[in-house]
């Protein structure tokens, strides 16, 4: 099979379709933390991502993220979009912030989606752009350690792969792992909120080790660690992810 990077489009791998788009602005208060919510009016929890800016033309924009110290992040529950500002440096306090929010439907959603393309002046498909074929998408809810085989292996060069699993570790084999770009969301089972996962890192708390989603690019495969729960009392997350390859540039 030819490499995906040889093709503008390959019918073995779909383009990922953005099913939610929202332009939003709000003037932040003077506090160093704040939560803003509004209804998304969707029949599913969207996997949100996007950018924000202090100017409406987005001349300088920042990726929505969950970095500590000073960040603005976006998430969603079954009803609302949830914007959280953590702002110990006061970078965004008392300022009007503009947002462009995008969202995917989780793989569990099989119903209809309203159009999002705004193509009044742009090409529907521009062969000068490098599009990102969707290699793999999934939702993984790891089981408690010791209750099941912890690792699953998938081969991603056979066409688009959809994964719904309960594994702690996924080994994803692909022709050129360095061609892959991932986006990951964490859904907290207890709060029902799903948000983009940034700063994936392994953490140790006392004698118990739990890992938020982490990606490791080994020579032959991409390893995704979706969580490690030894006790039912530890944080319970579902990892949603999308993995893209490079299309023809």
């Amino acid at each position, binding site marked *: 099979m030819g490499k995906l990077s040889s093709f503008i*489009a390959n*019918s073995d*791998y*779909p*383009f*990922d*379709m*953005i*099913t939610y*788009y929202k332009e939003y602005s709000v003037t932040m208060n003077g506090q160093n933390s704040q939560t803003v919510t509004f209804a998304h009016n969707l029949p599913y929890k969207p996997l949100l991502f*996007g*950018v924000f*800016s202090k100017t409406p*033309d*987005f001349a*300088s*924009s*920042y*990726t929505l*993220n*969950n*970095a500590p*110290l000073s*960040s603005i992040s976006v998430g969603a529950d079954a009803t609302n979009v949830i914007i959280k500002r953590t702002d110990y440096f006061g970078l965004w306090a008392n300022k009007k912030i503009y947002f*462009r929010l*995008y969202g995917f*439907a989780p793989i569990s959603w*099989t*119903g*209809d*989606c*309203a*159009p*999002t*393309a*705004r*193509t009044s002046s*742009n*090409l*529907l*498909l*521009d062969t000068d*752009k*490098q*599009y*990102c074929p969707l290699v793999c998408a999934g939702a993984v809810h790891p089981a408690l350690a010791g209750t099941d085989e912890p690792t699953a292996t998938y081969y991603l060069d056979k066409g688009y792969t959809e994964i719904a699993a309960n594994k702690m570790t996924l080994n994803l084999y692909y022709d050129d792992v360095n061609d892959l*770009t*991932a986006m990951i969301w964490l859904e907290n089972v207890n709060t029902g909120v799903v948000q*983009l996962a*940034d*700063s*994936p*890192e392994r953490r140790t708390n006392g004698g118990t080790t739990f890992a938020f989603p*982490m*990606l*490791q*690019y*080994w020579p032959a495969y991409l390893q995704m660690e979706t969580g490690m729960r030894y006790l039912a009392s530890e944080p319970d997350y579902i990892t949603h992810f999308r993995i*893209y390859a*490079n299309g023809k540039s």
Partner: protein
Amino acid sequence: MARVKRFIYNSDFMTLAKSNANKVNVTIPATNPGPVGIQVGYIATGIKVPKGAIMRANITYGQYNYKYSSSEGMRILNMVSSTKKQHWYVSFFVQNGELYVSYVIYIEGYGDSGVLVDAQTFLLEAVFLYPPNA
């Protein structure tokens, strides 16, 4: 309305394109935090950022021989000795269309003065995603 799972491509929906895949080596300079035990700074990468694009960064840190994927903010931990830990916290921001790396270096269990923090170099691969038909 359409069921997106039926289609390889549907022009009713935005999709993602990739632009400006850049690789640069970023070196956080050696420093002496002195009695405070913390040092901050920023480094211009020279990477131009498309307006409104979403950044994904892969960072390859040689000591660990693998790379993380994060859009902003990650920690690189380097053990210096059994009693001191040097942490480099790295994050990104955009100013005037250029990508900058900001860093914070701090030392856990700091009790001495005059500790030299070594320079650290990592390979930054910044990828920008955006929907062309937005």
